[in-house]
């Protein structure tokens, strides 16, 4: 009885294999016949999709006779997919912090800077956020503090104001594993009064802040939601999202803290093994161009990294704009952050959020 059972199973799995084999040969034959349009797979967040489709992807598709295929998701999910292999992504949009993780895991191709003709129009801070060998940043935004003056019952001007007792139970802070999490570790170290970064002092300050915090957010939508539900009255957030916030809750103010705002940098990289490396670099260059950058800034989709972008005062509302702002932003060393992230997350879990 038993042997026949196994035989049956074997026969079945064999036939399945044969069938699978047939399937793939057929597929190959189909692909090679006929001149097909080139395909560029772009991995991105998927926000402002209408804008990107109309102003970024479509013009590029027409100019280069290529089909752009999108893969969308948050930083972590998309990077994790690439690190697990079996992905055909050519270009990936990532925050500098996740880009660094990708670089350390060897997930990206080295970029050919001679192809990036628009590079000299870009702010220095954006040229090589993860080193000369890897992709540039196409947007530089600032992380400051948004708050509802009425609900907070005070004026906020600096990072250290977050520690004021008036904000007890009214604060939402970024979770340690989100892009701005490590920036808060740095801010806490500054608030503790140390000129050099001091990890112990930083965590001591963050622990002292914990009773004020309602929830550590990991998505901007959570942040906005907490304000509309009256759960939070203040918290660090990117300037670009303040517009959405003000639509939901009128009266919200955004401040650049006295100690300095942090640079939120989003990068573009070519994924290792891309068969369309040259085209991918063309695409990156297109995203850096004054044309795209200006449209994105005016649509309030991305703050420009291109110095030639000119905005009126009204257009610049809610956008991180102008050399006097951009050049003052503080940038964390992502290599340093990455090498400490595991310890920081552990300490954050154990010491801060207990």
């Amino acid at each position: 009885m038993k042997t026949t059972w196994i035989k049956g199973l074997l026969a079945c799995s064999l036939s399945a294999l044969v069938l699978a084999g047939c399937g793939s040969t057929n597929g190959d034959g189909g692909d090679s016949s006929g001149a097909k349009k080139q395909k560029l797979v772009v991995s991105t967040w998927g926000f402002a999709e209408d804008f990107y489709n109309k102003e970024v992807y479509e013009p590029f598709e027409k100019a280069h006779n290529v089909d752009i295929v999108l893969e969308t998701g948050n930083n972590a999910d998309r990077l994790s997919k690439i690190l697990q292999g079996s992905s055909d992504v050519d270009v990936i949009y990532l925050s500098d912090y996740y880009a660094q993780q990708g670089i350390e895991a060897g997930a990206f191709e080295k970029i050919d800077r001679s192809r990036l003709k628009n590079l000299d129009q870009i702010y220095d801070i954006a040229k090589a956020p993860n080193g000369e060998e890897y992709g540039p940043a196409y947007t530089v935004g600032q992380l400051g503090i948004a708050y509802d003056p009425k609900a907070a019952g005070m004026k906020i001007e600096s990072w250290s104001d977050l520690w004021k007792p008036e904000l007890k139970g009214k604060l939402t802070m970024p979770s340690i594993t989100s892009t701005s999490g490590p920036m808060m570790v740095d801010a806490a170290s500054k608030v503790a009064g140390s000129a050099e970064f001091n990890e112990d002092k930083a965590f001591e300050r963050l622990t002292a802040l914990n009773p004020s915090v309602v929830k550590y957010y990991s998505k901007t939508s959570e942040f906005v939601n907490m304000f509309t539900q009256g759960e939070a009255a203040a918290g660090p957030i990117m300037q670009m999202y303040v517009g959405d916030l003000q639509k939901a809750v009128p009266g919200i103010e955004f401040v650049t803290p006295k100690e300095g705002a942090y640079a939120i940098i989003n990068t573009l990289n070519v994924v290792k093994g891309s068969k369309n490396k040259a085209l991918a670099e063309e695409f990156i260059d297109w995203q850096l161009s004054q044309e795209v950058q200006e449209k994105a800034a005016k649509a309030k989709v991305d703050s420009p990294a291109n110095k030639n972008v000119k905005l009126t005062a009204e257009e610049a509302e809610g956008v991180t704009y102008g050399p006097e702002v951009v050049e003052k932003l503080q940038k964390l060393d992502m290599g340093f952050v990455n090498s400490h992230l595991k310890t920081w997350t552990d300490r954050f879990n154990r010491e801060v959020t207990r």
Partner: protein
Amino acid sequence: MKKRYLYVLLAPGLLFLTLFMIVPLILTVGSTFFKDGGFTAGIYAQFFKDAYFLDILGTTLLVSVMTTLLCIVIGFPVAYYLSKLPPRKKGIMLALAIFPLLTSSVVRSFSWMIILGKNGLVNNLLTALGIIDEPLSILYTPAAMIIGLVHLFLPLILITLVGVMESIDHDLVRAAQSLGASRLTAFRKIVVPLSIPGLIVGSILVFVGSLTAYTTPALLGGKKRVVATFLYQNAITLNDWQAASAIATIMMIITFVVIGLMNKAAAKFKPKG
């Protein structure tokens, strides 16, 4: 002899499960025992000595047990009511009861945020009625998680209980009453014991579901973590798949232990004869 060929019918399913469930499970569990080329169970020792992890595990178990108990308390009378309805009406009512399962857990959780928030329905109502002065903090607490999970999993216990209760012969209840039992006694001595199998299956589904739920605790829970969100942090944001696999293994073992215990309990309650 013909029976032999019937086993072949199992093969496609078996092959699928072996390839896509059993092999990955073995790989997941296996990967947790190898570190630096040696065989070790050190990672588990670390977890169980770690007060932080035990705290998370405690919260998760508490939330799961509370969710299961609440589902039983709310679900049992509703299921009995449903099982007594005429078929047409029962179909409609059951469909309504199952409805929460058909909506995305993200949408469902956002609805609860609107209800439970400081500017939410519950707080507005309570303040308007003068019962409270200051809005209560419900959202972003374990209580919010439990509310969300009960809403999510109540249908599971309803479906299993209604199925079992329908098959209870109502003549037994009538016989008990004709022999002098009160309605309550008849319910307690006939309906409850005969519903135990459905109750056990339903409870297991709810408990395991709550134990492993991710979206609801992530959106409705506050600073308190559960095992599933901890696992996500390890795997996705820290890229520590070994720790994540170990957590997954611990969750699996807890699940098996709970199922075993519940089945044992069920055997005890089984009406004799």
